């Protein structure tokens, strides 16, 4: 199965839309889990761009996607662990309420 080259702009539009939704979610939501999901959304938007460009520019983009997935998986593990620790302490995950880490 192959996707013709003229679909590239469509892929990029989808990717940009996903990315913007992710950014908006990170900026506007206060629940740490949701913010985390939005970050994953942004990563996958980037992955889509890589894959789309890989059609014309070679396989490098696809390889890069695997790296991003691996790093994202590691990040998810660490991030979830932190969120769980925070939840155990505060019994909530509202990022607006966490402001101890300063000067």
């Amino acid at each position, binding site marked *: 199965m192959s996707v013709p080259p003229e679909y590239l702009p469509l892929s990029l539009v989808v990717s940009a839309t996903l990315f913007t939704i992710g950014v908006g979610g990170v*900026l506007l939501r206060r629940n740490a889990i949701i913010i985390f999901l939005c970050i994953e959304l942004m990563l996958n938007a980037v992955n889509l761009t890589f894959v789309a460009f890989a059609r014309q520019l070679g396989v490098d983009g696809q390889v890069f996607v695997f790296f991003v997935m691996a790093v994202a998986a590691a990040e998810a593990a660490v991030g979830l662990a932190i969120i769980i620790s925070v939840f155990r302490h505060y019994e909530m995950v509202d*990022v607006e309420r*966490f402001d101890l880490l300063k*000067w």
Partner: protein
Amino acid sequence: MEMIPALGSALAGLLQEAAHGAAGAAGQGAAHGAGQAAGDHGGSFTPILPGLILLIPLIGAAVNGLGAFLWRDRRLVPSWVGPLAVGGAFAVVLANFLRMLETGAAGPAVVTLWSWLSVGGLEVGVDLLFDRLSMVMMLVVTGVSTVIHVYSAGYMRDDPGISRFFAYLNLFVFFMLVLVMGGNFPVTFVGWEGVGLCSYLLIGFWYENAEYSSAGKKAFIVNRIGDFGFLVAMFLLFAMFGTLDYVPIIESAADELAYGGITVTAVTLLLLLACTGKSAQIPLYTWLPDAMAGPTPVSALIHAATMVTAGVYLVARSGVLFAMAPMSQAAVATVGAGTALFAATIALKQYDIKKVLAYSTISQLGYMFLAVGVGAYTAGIFHLTTHAFFKALLFLGAGAVIHSVEHAFHEQGHHGDPNDMRSHGGLMSVMPVTGTTMWAATLAIAGVFPFAGFFSKDEIIWYAGSYGYPILWGVSLVAAVLTAAYMARLMFMTFHGENRTDEAAGQGASSALHEAPAVMTVPLVILAVLSVVGGWIQIPEALPLPHVSWLHDWLHPAVEPALAVAEEHGVEAAHAAPLGGGEAVWAGVSLVLAVGGIVAGAAWVRSKEILVPERAADDRGLARVLNRKWYVDELYERVFVGPLLALSRACWRVVDDRIIDGAVNGLGYAGRALGWVGSRLQSGRIGTYVLVFTLGVLAVLGGLVL
């Protein structure tokens, strides 16, 4: 007498190599000096072991200085090393003197030990100058020092710091010799500062007593004012002559300088400032009475016989410059005569035996300044020499008295001041040797025939009158009467009348009074003999006595250039005093005045009962003013010390604390303030960070796209 040059050559044999080097240098120096020696006094002088004169006291100081750390308990070692080191220097000086006497050479011989400063046009070597003037000074310094060192061995016998004491004392002798032997102004200045240092160390010798150590500081700081004059005078001299060596300056001063010109007047007035500091003249004399805080042999050696005469020596040494500046000469003479009278009035009402002698010293130094100021350099040096004998004797005698009274007080557990003459009285019967020898010195200082002071003081008074200073002449005559009076007061209060020691310290105290041991009385006797015969080296022709002009002839080559300048400009001695009458008449008058002064002083002491310090009422009226030294210390405190302290405090509180510290602290506060502003950005809220981060990325991307 034959033995001493032999000793010199024996030493030369021992130190052949060193001696060879020195002799080589001496040969050069002598060749250099021979050309400048006046024709009829020609003949070069080759000094014997010149470096050794300085080296021996320095070694003594080093050994005693080490001893102060190493053998604290062996007090016998320093009491031998100290006197022997100075005695050794005296022996070498004596050998040199005998050679100079024998060969009739006048010098000036300059021995350059090594080159010290060589900067651009300035060439200063470590030069030792041997001429008739420095020879007299070397003899006086080492001779009197030797006697006083021997006395000190007895006086300081029980002091735990004896080793340190002799280290300082030997170091003093070293620096004093540097001062008088220096062949140029900088070397003299080194000695000048060095003796000041030793004076400071020895005044504050008993440093546990805060009052004593601040007396040392006072001496040091007051002398700094004078030293400033010395330094600026040196700069001016270098600017004028391009050299600082005495010999070329003396040679060329008459040709290169304008008579009475501004520069030479400035130089000599600055030198006078230096001399008023070191020799305790008005206005810088206030440190000397306080300097009595030091051990009594120190007062005798440094603050009576040697160091304080450095100013007189310096004026005599640069006599040519002073002769070129008649205004400065008048200033020197006025300062001298004024000090002589002023200090004598204060001495009349002091109760501390050493304070009387201190003011007496200031007064006698005033006479010497009067002499060198009017141009009678020989008379000044003459009085310097005789004064060294009788004033050293007076101080040493006072030391013996203090020792004895202190012992009596100590036995009784009394904590009074042993120096206070109101607690003495009638000591003649227990201390006959001290009393008798001090009487010899008293008659000498009062100017009673045939004691030494009669000849030297009379000569000064005579020249003051005959060189045309009638007012100063009158002042010096009045001061002579006062001198006799306060000395008679001192002697009668201390040695005659009823003994008051029991009254001061409790019954039985007087039984502990004792004569000093032989190690102290023998120096007293030696100095007493010198106080009697010391004046016979110069007996004026006018008196119905054998005419002796040994000192005059001896010093003539050294003072001749200055006299020549004076003569050239018409300054000559008259042959009559301002009120008429010749030298013999006025010698008789001053003898009558001296005896009258003694009788008046004695009558004054006997006229009223003397109360011990505990019971004595405060003096009133003029007596109180004199006792409080005309309130000069209070005046200086108010006029100079107070404002200076206020200024220093302003510098501390305003300039240092506010401006300098303020600038540094201000920078610190500014940094902290900036940091505080920055810290507000770190809110700890992730949302804010992400927003700023996103906006930042958008801004960068926007920038790239546009």
